[in-house]
Every structure is written in C-alpha cells, then in structure tokens.
C-alpha cells in the first residue's frame, strides 16, 4: 500500500501540466469516462426531461456526469491517496488545509455549489467551474480524479455547520 501511495504522488509531481485553464478538450466532446460508464446516457436524458416536475433550475443536463459512480467508493486507501493528490496538485492552497476553505470554497462543510454526488464532484474537477476552478480533465488521469473525489467527499461527511454557537470551542484551520 505504501508503495502505491508513493507511486501516485510521484505521478502527481511529474505529470506534464501546461495551462490548466484551457478547457477546450473538455468542451469539445463528451469525455470518454462518461461514454464508458453511461452507454445509454442520451436515452436516459431524454426520458428525464419529459417530466417537468423533475427539472431543477441550474441543473446541467449535458455530459451525464451526474450518474457516474466512483469506482473507488468506500475504499479508504484511495481516500488517503486522494488526500496526497489534494496537496500535490495545489488543491489545498486554494481550498484550504483539510478542504476548510481559503481562496476557493470550503469542501468540508457538507454543502456544495455544484452538487456533492460523486459524479458532480468529478465534473467540477474535470470541467472546472466559472469562478476560477481549473478544468483538470485530460490533464490528470481519470483514476486520480476519482481518488480526489473520494477524498473530497470524505471531508464533509456527516457535518452540520448550520448553526454557529459563539460560546463553544473553535476548530483550528491551517494553510492559506
């Protein structure tokens, strides 16, 4: 297991990464990962939009990401590897240590701008998001993105931050 972690980190550090904001690759076509996992995606999508009650504002209907499942679901080793990648790809310096939020939004509060399902988190990493989240799809291997998804989803699990009580102890936060 240790060896595996090292391998992943090494890949992360040496992966050839050019300008990560160039999302042309992701825009141009449906990613392989979506086609592979969802051979009948277009049929399902057509069925979905015939039921207006199910249409929600702001929901992205393209790409089929939302129905993707994480092949590493429940794999704690992959969560740890994702945590290492989170540091290696500089995710931490935007989203804060332990995903607590900094330049970028918190990933640890159990709340999601663009959906918190595995497929939606995958899509956020793969395609990027408008307020500066880079599109990593095609820049790093899909299996590394899934490790990141596993890690990110583990951060906010079971948290309730709806109420701030100012008399209790506070958590520590690191990073910048």
């Amino acid at each position, binding site marked *: 297991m240790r060896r595996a972690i090292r391998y992943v980190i090494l890949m*992360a*550090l040496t992966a050839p*990464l*050019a*300008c*990560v*904001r*160039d999302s042309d690759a992701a825009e141009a076509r449906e990613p392989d990962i979506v086609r592979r996992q969802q051979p009948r995606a277009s049929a399902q999508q057509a069925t979905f939009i015939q039921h207006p009650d199910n249409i929600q504002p702001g929901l992205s209907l393209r790409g089929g990401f939302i129905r993707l499942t994480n092949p590493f679901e429940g794999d704690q080793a992959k969560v740890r590897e994702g945590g290492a990648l989170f*540091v*290696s*790809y*500089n*995710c931490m*310096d*935007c989203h804060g*240590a332990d995903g*607590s*939020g*900094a*330049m*970028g*939004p*918190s990933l*640890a*509060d159990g*709340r*999601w*701008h663009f959906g918190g399902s595995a497929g939606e988190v995958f899509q956020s990493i793969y395609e990027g*998001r*408008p*307020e*500066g*989240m*880079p599109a990593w799809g095609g820049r790093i291997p899909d299996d590394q993105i899934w490790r990141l998804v596993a890690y990110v989803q583990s951060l906010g699990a079971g948290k309730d*931050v*709806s109420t*701030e009580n*100012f008399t209790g102890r*506070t*958590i*520590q*936060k*690191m*990073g*910048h």
Partner: protein
Amino acid sequence: MQIRHVLVLALGVAACKPVGSNRDSAAVTTGAPVVANARIGTPVPPGDGDWTMPAHDYASSRYSTLAQITSANVKNLKAAWTFSTGVLRGHEGQPLVVNKTMYVVTPYPNVAYAIDLTQPGYPLKWKYRPDNSQAAVGTACCDVVNRGAAYSEGRLVYNLLDGHTVAVDAESGKQLWRVQMADLNRGETITMAPLVVKNRVIVGSSGGEMGVRGWIAALDIATGRELWRAYNTGSDADVKIGPRFKPFYATERGKDLGLTSWPGDAWKIGGGAVWGWLSYDPQLNLVYHGTSNPGPWNQDMRPGDNKWTCAILARDADTGELVWAFQVTPHDYWDYDAVNENILVDMPVKGQVRKTLVHFDRNGFAYTLDRATGEVLVAQPFVPMNWARYINLETGRPEIDTSKATRQGKLVKNICPSLEGGKNQQPAAFSPQTGLFYVPTNNLCMDFESRPVSYIAGTPYIGANAPETGGPGNYKGEFIAWDASNGRKAWGIREPFPVWGGALVTAGNVVFYGTLDGWLKGANARTGELLWQFRVGSGIVGNPITFTGPDGKQYVAVYSGIGGDMGLLIAGDVAANLPFDVRERGTTLPDLARYTSWGGMLFVFSL
C-alpha cells in the same frame, strides 16, 4: 497531527475576549510637535477640500489640512448619510472626492459609482459596470478586493480584478479605454490602486501566491497605450537596470542579479508582484513601489537573495528605469512582502534634515530611508518581532535568528510577526503638525512548515502551512503613533483584533482609523486619547478620507465591509448570504464572526 496539538495549546494561551480598547503609555503632552521640522515631502494637491488620489497626495501622507473637525469637537461627530455599494466582500481602499462628486469603486465586480454631492439624498450621476471575468474570483489569493481609483483631468482610472485597467469619463461614466495588463491564466490579477503621474497611469500586478513574475507598468492616460513595463525579476534589461542604477548597498550591485540570485529559471515564477501602494517625488521624478514575496514560500526551492522580491524600488517615472533598490528582506523565509506604502517626508534624522521615505514593513521593522539614495537611516521594530535581532545599518540587511529560519519538512514554531506582517496593506498616515506617523498594526505570530510544491499555471504556488495565533499580550492589533526620526513608538491604542483599516490624520489634531469589529474611531493625534467612536455595520478594512462638501462642511468618509486576507481567510467565513460554503471559523480570530458579518456600505460623517 503534531500541528494540531501545538495549535490547541497556542489557542489556550492566546484566547482573548474583545474588550474595550486599552491605551498604552499615552504620555505625550500637547503643544509642540513630537518631531519638529518634519513636513510632507511633496506639494499638497490644490483644493485640499477634495481627495483626488488614493493616499491624498504623492507623498502618501493621508494628511488633510481641513480643521473644522477638531480634537475638541470630534465627540459630536454623527453619521450624515450612507450608501450601499451593492457588493459584499472586503472593501479595502477609499472613495475619491473631486468637483462635488464622490467616486466609489467596489470589490469584484469592480462597479464604479459617481455620487452627486450637491443634491439632497446624494443621487447617482452614473454607475459603471465593467466587463470583468468571473474566473478572477478564484484566482485572487486574498479576497476580491480593490484598493481604489485615481483621478486626473476628467478621467477616473482604476484596475479590474481580472487584470484590466480602465479609464472612465468622470462626468458621464462612459468608458474611455480598457486595456488588458495582467494574465489570469498565469495567476495574475490586479487589486492595487493606480497612481497618475503627469500623463501616465502607473499600475502593477498581484499574484505573489500564484507563481507570477511581478511587474509595474505605465500607460498613456489618454489612450491606455503601454509606455513602459518593468519586471521585478529577470535580466537587467527586463528589470530596467541601466547606467542610472546606483543602489546604496554593495549587495544590491552586480550584473543581472534578478537572474543570478535565483536557481535556474525560478525567477520566471518567482513572484515580486506590485499589489501595494505607489508614491511619487516630483522633484526627483521617482516612483516608489514595493515588491511582494518570492514564490514559493518554501525557501529551500529558491536558494539565493531572490532579487528583486521583498524590495523597495525607486524608478524614473518617465522611463521605468531603476534608480535605486533596497531589498528589505533578502531571501524571504516568511512571506514578508515589502509592498506596504512608502511615505515621503522631509525631516531631521540625527540632527540633519533628510529627504526620507518611511516604510512599515511586513517584517516588523519600521524603516526610515534616504529617498534619493536608498540608504537606511533608521530601522527599529514597531511590533513584537523575533525573527531578526536587528537591522545592520552598514549593510541594510537583517541579522536573522536562525532558529526562526523556515526549512522544508521542519515545523518552526512561534515566528513573530506572522505572515500577515507587523502591518499589511492598511496604510499609515503622517501629520506635519505632530511629526508622527499613525500606523495600524497586527500582533500575530505563526508556526511555519514548508513542503515541496509543483508549479501548475493558474494554481497557487505556495508549499507551506503557516497557522497563526495572537502575539504576546492580550491583544492582536494596535494603532500606534511612531516617531520615524528616532525609531520609537509615541503611543498606542490596543485592539482585540488586527487593525486592518488605514489611517487618516487631520489638521484638527484628530486621527481616524477603523477596526475589524466595525468601529470607526477618532483619537487625539498628539496623545492617543480615544475621543469618538461609531459602530458601522460590517468590519472596516478600508481607509477613511476627509473632504469639504458643497455646503462648506467638513466630512469624513469610510467603507464598511469586512474581507481581505484578514476577513476572508483568517476569520473564516462570516457571510450569511451563501447557503453553501458556511466555513468554520479560523483559529486566529475565532471570535470575529460574533462581532461582524459581510457588508458593503459607505458611511459619511459630519458635525
């Protein structure tokens, strides 16, 4: 894990409840100036009832000769009117007042408002909403702030977060030109306030945490055409070092130091951004600016002095040529940017009147330099500080306590000041009446652990964790008066939180400043006695100004709207409008969210 333990301990010691301000050794008598024969080093702009440039004058004094509001009557100051900017997030900077019009520029999306001061209810003359890329929001390191506009000959000029500089017709609000100066894809944004010198607009880049290569440039104010651009790392040609370059200290001399003081090509992504304030001496025709930290924070990755990061640079305003340079913190270990304002004052030092530049650095030392040569005349700590023993005046360099030098893989504990600095962007003020400088300061310390980091364009290039705690004593900020002739504190007002708003001092012997917990305060400039305070809606990270209204009355104006690095990152999330992203509170200012939440208001006061 280890860090967690240390922090919990540190918190136990540093836990502090915000209480009323404590005065610290206010022992100055009234009457004569504390520092005699000190005067602002540049001409005061005509029509002192206006406020036409970010720091009021080219010297960056933030001093006004207006004197209706005095230390005797300031207790009667009342809110006259307010205006909502329609934007939350950190309202750093200050409004301008020109020709009976007030100009307000908001944080991203950088909306500009022109407010008619002659009409009841202060209606808008115009509102300008620029095209401004949304991607800038996640590219800016430390909140989406803007530090204000400059005015010149019927034009309002300012920078957009996404890297454009714009000029707007001050009467109509019509966009005159819009020029892309910075590249978001490389992590560059712009947050600083430009300065207009003759027919040139001087602007600089932000992005010291993103592996940028910092620069400063001049644009033709009529057209937006770029006249010169100087980089702060790289070859002498790129840095604009030529025959006129005569630095005072030997370590600043040599060929291509912007290349040779870096390993390999590290200078290309080495920081040295220009996100702070600019000053200008018309007589010497020099523009003064600081440069940011080197990237990454992990110093093991960039052996050498890393020139010209963490430096004060003096450039010819017409050509951008570097005339002198002084690297305040060579080979920075602690994220001590040198971008803080440089205040130009002529005053006696060691018995002789000198043309000085006074600079309160992030590193905790207050420097009094000769602004013609870059010689350090005085350098004394102005906040609790432990990373250096002293500044060697023979070399200009700090004598470092090596136990506080950060190293990869090592947790170095209790470094003071923290990476937020003894002072950050919050600008100081100078009064020729008292000869004193008025300085908003932080009292924070940090632990620092660095690690290897890869450069990935458009992502942070940092490679360190640096959790912060309060510094020694039961306070995290202090508003101080400083004698820069002798390098000593005259008085101080202790605050429960870092003082992240700037200072304003007037001929009425009143000094104004705002606090993170939402108070605008007025104190006696000679003695530091607190005379007046008013609770605005949201914490203050902006800078008060004063002006004469069309009715002949003196007004004081300030933005309310917490944010910036201190509000956004350190205090945790204090916003209520986002159903997602409810961040847990940070450790450094765990109680701040109890005293403020996000806002965006202009407050105007009068007697």
